[in-house]
């Protein structure tokens, strides 16, 4: 009833005009939106209690969740927006503590920090990666620390090892072990070279060659003999499997050949089960 022809024409005109205007506006606004309102609101603001020597970056991801603690169970109580600046304070395991422009601190998952960019200096705009411990490629160099439990020909053994990997195949290891048996206790210190021919296998075998010393102290209550120190030659084979990027289980059997000052040299076979952590 209200549809008079004049009004209809007017509304059609408005519609056309709106379309034209809209198209024009879209053309004029080709530049992408780089900042949300709140991201631009604080501009280049720097928090007051910012520690020295921390790296400033800009968040290039759509958003970044900040947790109250370095763990997936903690509450997300802040979100860093796209284009917002933040400072990387420190890393603990797979988490980074960051500070925002307003001085708010929180923990971000390293996996979420995959689009952060440098702000300062010549490297402005360059992507920044937070270094994570562990192995990324199999050829990475790096330190590893291992604990092991062993059976040293009937005696219990506990071992500690520190390894350094030169290539994907080759690594060197410092090993110390304390064995406690019914008749004697001993301490062994060795340096060994490990070769892993197929590091990419899920169950990867390795060969071991080393040398060291073995200090044996017989239990005084049973036999009254002196401590003796022998040079040992070590050969062994083992197998390793990575449960995660940073954690590997290993099993090993090693032959300790003791070059004793007695008439016969002594051979000891040791079975070992342990784990390595890549640092």
């Amino acid at each position, binding site marked *: 009833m209200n549809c008079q022809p004049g009004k209809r024409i007017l509304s059609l005109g408005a519609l056309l005009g709106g379309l034209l205007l809209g198209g024009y506006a879209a053309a004029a606004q080709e530049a992408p939106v780089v900042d949300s309102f709140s991201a631009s609101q604080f501009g280049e603001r720097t928090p007051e209690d910012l520690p020295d020597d921390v790296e400033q970056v800009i968040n290039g991801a759509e958003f970044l969740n900040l947790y109250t603690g370095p763990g*997936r169970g903690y509450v997300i109580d802040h979100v860093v927006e796209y284009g917002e600046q933040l400072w990387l304070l420190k890393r603990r*395991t797979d988490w980074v503590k960051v500070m925002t422009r307003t001085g708010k601190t929180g923990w971000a998952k390293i996996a979420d920090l995959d689009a952060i960019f440098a702000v300062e200096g010549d490297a402005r705009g360059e992507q920044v990666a937070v270094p994570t411990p562990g192995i990324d490629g199999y050829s990475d160099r790096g330190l590893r620390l291992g604990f092991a439990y062993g059976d040293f020909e009937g005696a219990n053994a506990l071992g500690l090892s520190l390894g350094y990997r030169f290539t994907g195949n080759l690594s060197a290891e410092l090993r110390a072990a304390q064995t406690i048996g019914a008749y004697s206790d001993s301490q062994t210190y060795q340096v060994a070279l490990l070769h892993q021919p197929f590091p990419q296998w899920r169950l990867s075998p390795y060969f071991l060659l080393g040398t060291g010393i073995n200090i044996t102290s017989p239990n005084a209550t049973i036999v009254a003999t002196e401590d003796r120190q022998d040079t040992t030659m070590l050969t062994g084979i083992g197998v390793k499997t990575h449960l995660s990027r940073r954690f590997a289980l290993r099993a090993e059997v090693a032959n300790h050949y003791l070059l004793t000052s007695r008439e016969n040299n002594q051979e000891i076979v040791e079975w070992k089960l342990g784990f390595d952590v890549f640092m």
Partner: protein
Amino acid sequence: METRIRRIHVKLGCALSIAGFSAFSVAQGDATIDEIISPDLERRDIREAKIDSEDFEFTAYLGGIMNVEDFGSNALYGGSLAYHINEDFFMEAAYGQTTLGESSYERLSGSAPLLTEEERELSMYNLSLAWNFLPGEIFIFDKWALNSNLYLIGGVGNTSFADEEHFTYNVGVGVRILAKDWLALRLDMRDHIFEHEIFGEPITTNNLSTQLGVSIYF
């Protein structure tokens, strides 16, 4: 005749021009393909962030007590060094020492003591792996909410006393409350299980210790 010659010229011209064009078009095709597939992308530089890591935790026992089966309870001194593998697991090397009291046999029989003073000095160390199986927060009044962990820990070690080494298994549970993200309070309870032969025949003993420690992450 003339027309025929002209026709030949035209044909020749056509053939030549076609040949030339096709050659050109081939060249152009190569260029286009090159343009499409050439890896002319600028390689993006990724730089590693300059950032400190805090994966190690040093703990000093503020106070501890250890009960050695048959030898009473005594103060325990020591500390530990832990490396945090990820948010769920950490590995730890610990050291502690205590002294043994008199066994009830020694006290009741009135005979000569079983062990000399020196043999009563007990020292132990162990290598353990722990699982932060209940991470969370602890609320103190309405002012503080502190991050915390309840962890299960177990490992192997050596306990040395009475001139003997004793292979020791340890299992335990502990709670860690973080006052700051680099400072924590730890209360830890362990059972140290080893076998000894002081009373003549081998017996397996469960020796409990409790220690309160303060730890610093670095």
